[in-house]
Structure formats: C-alpha cells, structure tokens
C-alpha cells in the first residue's frame, strides 16, 4: 500500500492553538501581525498529545475512517512530532517522525512502514497533494506562520453565534509558493480562537475550501477545538477530525522522538 507522509493534523491542531492564543481585550483595529506575534508568545505549549479520529465522506456518501495518536514536543520552529496510525488495519503501526531543523530549512522526516520493518526518509511533498486521502493538502497541514503572509484586519462578523474578528492573509513571495491565493481567518472575539478559514485557490471568486473548528474546550489551561471540518466544494467531500485524550505540557519521554523509537513495532 502506498502511504503518504502523515505530517500533521498535529500541525493543524497547533495552528488552531496558536490562533486561539490571541488574547481578548485587544482593541478593534489592532494590528493583525501584532496579534499573531502575541499569540505565539503567550500560548506556546511545551508538549501536546492526542488521539485523532478522521472521517472522510466523499460526494457519493462513501465513508472512510482513520485513527492515530500524535505526540509533539516543542513548538513551531523547534517542534518534534511523532504520529502513529492505529486504524484502519491496513495502516496500523505506520509511524511518522518529524524533527525540525534550523530556521528556513525543511524538517527531517521519516516514515516507518511495518511491512518493510524499517524507516524510510521522505522528502517534502507537493504542497497541493492530498494528505492521506483527505480534503486536507500538505499546505493545510503546515503551521500557520504569519511571517509568510501579508495580514490585514478586515472587520467583524458573527460565526456560529460568536462575534469574530476577520483577518485576511495573503501569501508572500518570500514565504514560498502557496497553493492558495488568500485565506480569510475568523477569530472568536471573546477568546480569540480560530473558528473558520475560507481558503481561496488561485482564480477563486468564492472559497473552494472551508475549514471550520468547533466543540471548543479548555484543557490544561489551553483552548482547543475538538472537532475540525474541511470541506471541498470542488470535490463535494468533507473531512472531519475529532480529537480525544488531549493533554498539554505532559512530560514526554526523551526517547520518544527518535528513530530508535520510530522503529519500535507496536510502540508509540
């Protein structure tokens, strides 16, 4: 079976957490970049772990599910991630290790395939490739790094009954080639948590993809959306991610983020 690099719903979760960090009380009209910087400073978590369950429903209504466990240590530029798939049986035991490198460099990434009994180093994927058959692409999996975008406050809007700030993020040339022409971010005003992203592909008048976060909970002092949905209007499909067993700042074994551990069959 061909298995694509499962880089990270983990990273998507980290993005959500990062944006959730935007503190309440900042005045309307505040500099969007200042908000993003502030969020990163205040809400870094030392570690994060969760069990994820993913459901893909295509336009014919066919349902596919995947389950995995994710562990992260560090944050953004110094993050180390380990993901281990648990379901379906066909991908059980597949592991993915990502170790960040110095600024501007792609992380080192390896995939462990139980059928081969060894790890394989993998290269950066095309950013528009589908992530393990879902509606997320590899760019969607990357952490939102505001320095790669021109960001601007657009106004306010109500989403799911909550007042939100609206920030437009346009990819900068210096940030690398983006799949998207524009992203519109909706931040809940009271806790400044990301509730929605409208994702515009090049040439789009309406967003091709919608990313919606819901079922917010405060765990270990950090807001986190336990449910995330990515819908693709072009394909008519939707991917839902539900997180469980979430824990922040729980000490991780020093040996968890090593190639030795990645190769431990049955390990996590």
């Amino acid at each position, binding site marked *: 079976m*061909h298995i*694509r690099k499962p880089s990270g719903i983990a990273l998507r979760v980290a993005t959500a957490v990062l944006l959730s960090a935007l503190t309440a009380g900042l005045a309307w009209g505040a500099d969007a970049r200042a908000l993003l910087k502030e969020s990163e400073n205040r809400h870094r978590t030392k570690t994060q772990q969760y069990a994820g369950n993913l459901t893909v429903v295509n336009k014919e209504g066919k349902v596919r599910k995947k389950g995995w466990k994710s562990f992260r240590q560090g944050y953004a530029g110094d993050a180390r991630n380990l993901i281990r798939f648990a379901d379906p*049986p066909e991908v059980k035991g597949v592991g993915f290790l990502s170790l960040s490198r110095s600024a501007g460099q792609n992380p080192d990434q390896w995939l462990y395939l139980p059928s081969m009994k060894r790890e394989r180093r*993998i290269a950066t994927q*095309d950013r528009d490739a589908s992530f393990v058959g879902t509606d997320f692409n590899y760019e969607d999996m990357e952490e939102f790094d505001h320095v790669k975008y021109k960001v601007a406050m657009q106004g306010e809007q109500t989403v799911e009954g909550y007042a939100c700030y609206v920030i437009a993020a346009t990819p900068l040339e210096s940030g690398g080639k983006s799949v998207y022409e524009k992203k519109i971010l909706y931040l809940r005003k009271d806790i400044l948590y990301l509730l929605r992203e409208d994702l515009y592909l090049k040439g789009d008048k309406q967003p091709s993809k919608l990313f919606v976060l819901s079922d917010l909970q405060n765990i270990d002092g950090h807001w986190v959306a336990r449910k995330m949905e990515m819908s693709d209007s072009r394909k008519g499909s939707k991917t839902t991610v539900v997180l469980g067993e979430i824990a922040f700042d729980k000490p991780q074994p020093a040996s968890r983020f090593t190639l030795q551990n990645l*190769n431990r069959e049955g*390990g996590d």
Partner: protein
Amino acid sequence: MTRLHLQVCLFLLFLITSTQALAENFSGYVEAKGFAYPERASYRDPWVLGWGTLFNKWEQKVGEVQLTASLRGEWISSNEQGSLLLDLADRHIRRPPFSVQDLWVRLPIAPDLDLQLGRFQLGWGKTDGYSPADAFLPRDFTDPFSDEKLPLWALRLTGQNSSLRYEAVACPVTTPWRIPVLGSRNAPLKAEGFPAGTVFKEVDSPPPEVGFAALRLLYTLGDWDLGAWGRAGVRPAPLLNFRFDQATLAPSGITIPVERRYAREEAVGIELSRIFGSWIIRSEAAALLSRERDLGDALIGSLSVERGFGDGTLLITLAGNANEPPVDPTLLFDRALLPALISAWNRTEEWGEWKLVWTTGLKRGDGLLKAEAGYNLTDLWKVTLGGELPYGSTAGPFGALYADRRVHVAIRRSW
C-alpha cells in the same frame, strides 16, 4: 494432514480471533486469491490456482515490554504445501499450512537500548527494489512474484546514542530460502538445458544449525543518512547439487535428485541516502566474500531515486554485480536478476491505489511487468486486481517464467 484437518484448524483460528473479548489486541485479515494462467510449462501445471489465507496478530504492551505473536493459516490448491502442519523455523523445503510469523518480546534495557528476542522479521538497507543489505535475508518464493520475507529466530540489540544508531543481530538457526518446486512453471530450470520430461526429486537437505551474526551502524547528519554493516555466517540462499550420478530413468523421463547445500559468507557494506529538494537519492555498496567455488565473491551496488508527484511516487533503482558469477546467476537467487533496472510508479486515489512495476534485466534482456489496483470497498474490505507479465529471453530469471504469466483477483477482509 488431510484437507478436513486444515479446514477445521482454519475455522478454529477464525473463531478464536473473532471473539469480541480477545479482539482488542488482535489484527489480521482473511483473504481469498485466485490466479489464472493463459499457458502452462507442463501438464502438471494448473490453469487456475486458489490461495486462501487467514492471518492473525496479537500485540500486547506490558509496561515498556512489547509482546507480539502472529499465526498464518493457508490453503493452496496446488502441491506447493508440504506434509508438515507447522514448520517452526521454516527449515523445510515446502511451505506449511501454518506458519508462526511473529513470536517475540522486546525488553527495554535502557531508554535508548532494546533487546528483542524470538521470531521476527528484519528489514535492512536503504534502496527499494533491490538492496544488497536486505537481499540475502531469507525469502519464500513459493509465489515467485511476491517478495515475501521469512521471519528468523534471532536476538537483536538496538540502540541510539544521539545521531548514531546501532543494531546487533545474532541468528542462531539458519532459516533457508524457500524456492518453488523445481521443474514447475515457477522454477523451470530451462537454463540448465535439461531434456524434456526431466523430473527433479528434491531432497529436503537439512540446513546448517548455525545462522549468522551481523552488526549495523547508522548515522544521521543533516540531509544525509549514512550506514555501514557487516555480517558473517551461513548464507541462507541454497546452492543446488544436481545429483546426475544418482539419476534414474522412468517411463516419463529422467529423474534427477537435487540436494541443497549452504555456503558460509562474510559481507560488508555501506548505505547512504540524501535529500536533494523533492528528490531522495539512496545508494548502497556491498562486498560479499565466500570460499565456496559455486558462489564466489560479489561486489554489488545499487542506486535509487525517488520523487513524489502529487499523490503518486516514482521510484527508479539500478543494481548490479561487478563480479561475474561462477555459475548461471539464476541459480544464485538473490543475485539472479543483476544487473537490473527497476522502475515503480504508485499512486493513491480516492477509491484506493494502484501501482506499476517494471523490472528489466540489463544483461539477458528479460524482465517483468507487474500491475495492480486495489479498490477499497470499505475501510475493512478490499478487492485487488492485477497481473504479472514476465517476458524476454528464457535464459534470464524472468524470461524463464514465461508460463507464469497470469492475472489475479483477491478479496480481503481486515480487522
């Protein structure tokens, strides 16, 4: 063992693992597979072949100790299975109906040092398609187009110290390669020029008791992954002794006993891989030394490039042996296809995945084209359609399998 016994055993195996209370730590699958052949090498070859498999794996973690056991039960409609019900070390020439694939425990000795002992598979090397580090490990070629590794009884110590990893393996018992029935469409031995009607009487020669020992070091440095390894002991691929002196003449033709012997071999090798943008280059080189006249030394190198294109991956591997083998390389199994170019393209689709693999022998002009598409009915049910097309000179390892051209269909239920 009678067919009834086998069916009862398979049914019991299924019942055990489908019990809800036990199911939590179990995974596995049941698969029915059918092959159809447009031609035969002899009247003994079937036009169609059925293959049923039931595989169950149990995994349990007790603290930091990992326990794993798995059992495979099989039914094959041809005579490829031996008379033994279970061959615990896979030391006999025919594939048994039951096989222990895993029976091992992994004990943490220190945070970065593990001891694994029992029966398990090894996976070595860097280059996919052909790896000199991995190629010598025992394989089961009952199905000549599958690359099925045999597990080993072994003790394995693995550790990591910063960017350096090390692995020491001691395999006290030889598990030999399992090769197809000689003279069948899967091993026609055309290269030896035996007269038509020749029958090979395979002697189940016992392999040596002792296995091999190996040490492997791996180091990661930025975009580079480097490795070096060495091993010594019994080479598990057999050398065939055709006992012409004991040949007998039967009404159907000549019957030639075939014995197997196993050479000692020492080998050292290096591995490296590096990322160049979206490409990954992997390479290996190995020197294999033996005093066995019919084996000789080998200097094997391999180079592969891989790149992802959207949801697909292209892999190209070139492998060759700088030394000319002293005998027909087809009889050396792991070196049979060298030099070779292996190209593989696989792609994940919304409905499943497909792959195309083209292996071409660069010396004798033969090759193998494989195609397979897997359709996911659900997350647990899958249908696979495929075909294998060996072609070219019958002096080559693939061309000789001309009567093995086939299509196959399989349905699998996983849990």
